[in-house]
């Protein structure tokens, strides 16, 4: 999720909106920080600050060290900050090591898992998925409501929507939500569970983070807008398949699988076009 902060890389803004550029770079970190502070101070979502702090510090230190040594310059710090804070919010474990390892693996993946100059995975999506898959006995994911009060949920949805709209990625969030709702009918029909139960997960904070910070990551999505929407639709579709097979962390695994696959396909098509021309 860190590359989400590199909104400037999505292309120059119109002249009349240049003033937005600097602000926009800080919006995602501000959004996720405000989500964390509000959720914890109101509802105590974190068992302790030390685990989230460990994830942030690890991500920050890894990013600084790897970026500096690899490229000879200091990388953009907000990216690591978002990775660390996301790991700190999303993971649930009585132990400290999953937070540290997950944050490190997330950052390191950007420097290791590269193809033709691009990294393929949303870093925290990959890190979280790996830790969940490899340490199921000791790690789980944030999977509960924050307080079950309507107002904070509405505020986060509105604030998140406004911010992704300002950075020009709202259509991705919207595509995912519509796809999820569509597929929830399918799941309800196939499994026989009440439709509201099938929809229930999207009302939780885990999905808020997923929708606003992961599926909108510009560095690991394909270029054309229609293709981006198609990729997000496929993420929801793979999630449907996984959910029908009772995979609890379906959205994370789906993005982990579909995102890089789409990028590789795009790179292959680009190379093919290059050879033909």
């Amino acid at each position: 999720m860190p590359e989400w902060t590199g909104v400037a890389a999505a292309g120059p803004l119109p002249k009349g909106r240049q003033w937005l550029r600097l602000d926009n770079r800080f919006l995602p970190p501000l959004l996720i920080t405000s989500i964390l502070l509000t959720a914890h101070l109101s509802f105590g979502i974190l068992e302790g600050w030390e685990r989230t702090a460990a994830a942030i510090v690890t991500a920050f230190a890894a990013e600084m060290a790897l970026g500096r040594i690899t490229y000879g310059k200091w990388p953009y710090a907000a990216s690591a900050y978002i990775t660390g804070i996301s790991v700190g919010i999303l993971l649930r474990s009585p132990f400290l090591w999953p937070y540290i390892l997950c944050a490190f693996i997330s950052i390191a993946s950007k420097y290791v898992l590269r193809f033709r100059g691009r990294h393929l995975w949303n870093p925290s999506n990959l890190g979280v998925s790996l830790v969940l898959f490899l340490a199921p006995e000791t790690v789980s994911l944030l999977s509960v409501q924050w307080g079950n009060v309507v107002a904070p949920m509405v505020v986060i949805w509105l604030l998140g929507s406004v911010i992704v709209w300002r950075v020009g990625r709202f259509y991705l969030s919207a595509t995912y939500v519509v796809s999820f709702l569509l597929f929830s009918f399918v799941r309800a029909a196939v499994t026989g569970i009440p439709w509201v139960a099938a929809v229930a997960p999207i009302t939780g904070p885990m999905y808020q983070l997923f929708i606003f910070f992961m599926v909108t990551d510009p560095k690991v999505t394909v270029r054309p807008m229609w293709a981006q929407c198609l990729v997000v639709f496929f993420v929801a579709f793979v999630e449907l398949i996984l959910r029908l097979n009772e995979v609890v962390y379906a959205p994370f695994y789906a993005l982990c699988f579909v995102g890089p696959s789409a990028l590789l396909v795009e790179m292959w098509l680009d190379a093919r076009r290059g050879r033909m021309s």
Partner: protein
Amino acid sequence: MVVGPRRSLASLMVSDRQQRVARVVWTVLFVAGVAAIPVLNRQTLATAPSAEGGAARFGFHLREVAREAGVDFVHQAPTFDPQLGHIMPQVASTGASVAVADFDRDGWQDFYLTNSADNSHNRLYRNNGDGRFTDVAVQLGVADVNRTGTGVSMGAVWGDYDNDGYEDLLVYKYGGPLLFHNDGGAGFTDVSARAGLPAWVNANSATWLDVDRDGRLDLFIAGYWADDVNLWRLETTRIMPESFEYANNGGRKYLLRNKGDGTFEDVTTAMGITSRRWTLAVAAADLRGTGYPDIFFANDYGVSELYANQGGKRFVDIAETTGVGRTPKSGMNASFGDIFNDGRLAIYKANISEPGVLVQGNDLWVPKEGGGEGEYDNLAPSLGVDLGGWSWGAQFGDLNNDGTLDLYLVNGYVSAGERSSYWYDFSVIAVGHSSIIGDARNWPDMRGRSFSGYQRKRVWVNDGVGRFTEVAQSVGASDTNDGRAVALADLGNRGVLDVIVANQAGPALVYRNTVTSGRHWIDLELEGTASNRSAIGARVDVTFGGRTQRQDVLAASGFSAQNQRRVHVGLGAAAAVDRVRIVWPSGREQVLERPAVDQLHRVKEPA
């Protein structure tokens, strides 16, 4: 000439070769990091590997003897309104309990088991003193307490509320609580109506405590479901918790002050207890050194509560400031133990851990050293007692008489279809907003699936220096029933703690304990005079071999359970006890110098 900044910039440029080398290094570190995940995961789960030789390695061995001891009880779960049929195993998942007392004062520990189906009978097992037990519940009038329309039993707790020397019995229910007066060990009389107990409480826990130290036991009953819910005749299906971790729509609590004339008055609100959380377990002890008992609530669907007793006049919830009530989990157990032999009572709260879905981890709240701020640290992960599956009742007790308190935990929620799990569907509904999760109709049908079923129990042996080792399979605690309550008692007067387990919709188990020879012990049975006669709330410090172990006389402990009131302290190789210091609930102190070991001491509060 190159100026400084330009040279500095140049020096920072990294060549392609350097980048390649760096990438190789990062790749190695990345792979190492990924490889470390399963390794650390396995290390975290480390248990004693051997299935044999428990007695030799850990100093004790358990053998299940219920049938041969004459205990043939099988718990029956309740059946509620058909509107809950699709999730019945969940909503009817409690009711198996065990409460130990020597009700007839013959010197042998007896125990009471609750049943929960309509018109089912509870059992009172009288200890014959020869290793066998006889059910005398019908004969003594405490069996037929689950009649249709009156609710069904969820647990029981003994306490001598009228100080006549015989332990009386409170049965708490999803229904009207019942108080049975013990008529000299020869029978029981239902005095509920006269006592002024509430008409209906959907309770999963209750305890006796002397709130104001007036020498009379008061009563605390904690509601789980809201009081206006009749689970047999639902007016609405919107009865479920409004949140998986922030629910505040549970049952009210009742603090009933003993007026001394056989009646009780409701002082709950007046004393500042306003909780509406979904309480599953309560335990009371003097946790702050004030001389007055505080009350710890283990709450399902939310944070714990710790009500600090303000001189017997009022309670204040200090869970947030002390740290024990900051993180919401699924609390199901409350037990206290001096695990470091330093006089600090740790609080063990059981929660849920299900691999791949939900890893809350159990909590072991230990007062910070120094204790000045009254804050607690959760040492469960570092001591290795955090992962216990879907955990229910737990008890501290020195199972191997080595001088440190061990921990016995039962677990398992619903054991049904062995190859199917309800967890995925639960994970879907649990995250839903209150408007979804709060309505039972929205909960997916369980369709005979298991829900954290068939779980291995946990027996953690305390090495006394900061580590617990899980030894259940090695020492013979090998059942996989849906455990709810566990109680520890010396059933054979042999100087060892045996184990009684109440299983939901399953058989009661009695584990006979055999401890390696050469380990000493001392037992103390207290009788209050100025204090309540059961001595509930008394603190006992036993000093031996250069250490001092604290144990308190408690009523309820664990989940729906009560241990023997007798204090049992293992001494290890120490062949002498230096001193026993007793702080009675009245505040009086008593010291026994060099009491004999390997025997029971009956101690009466001095005038």
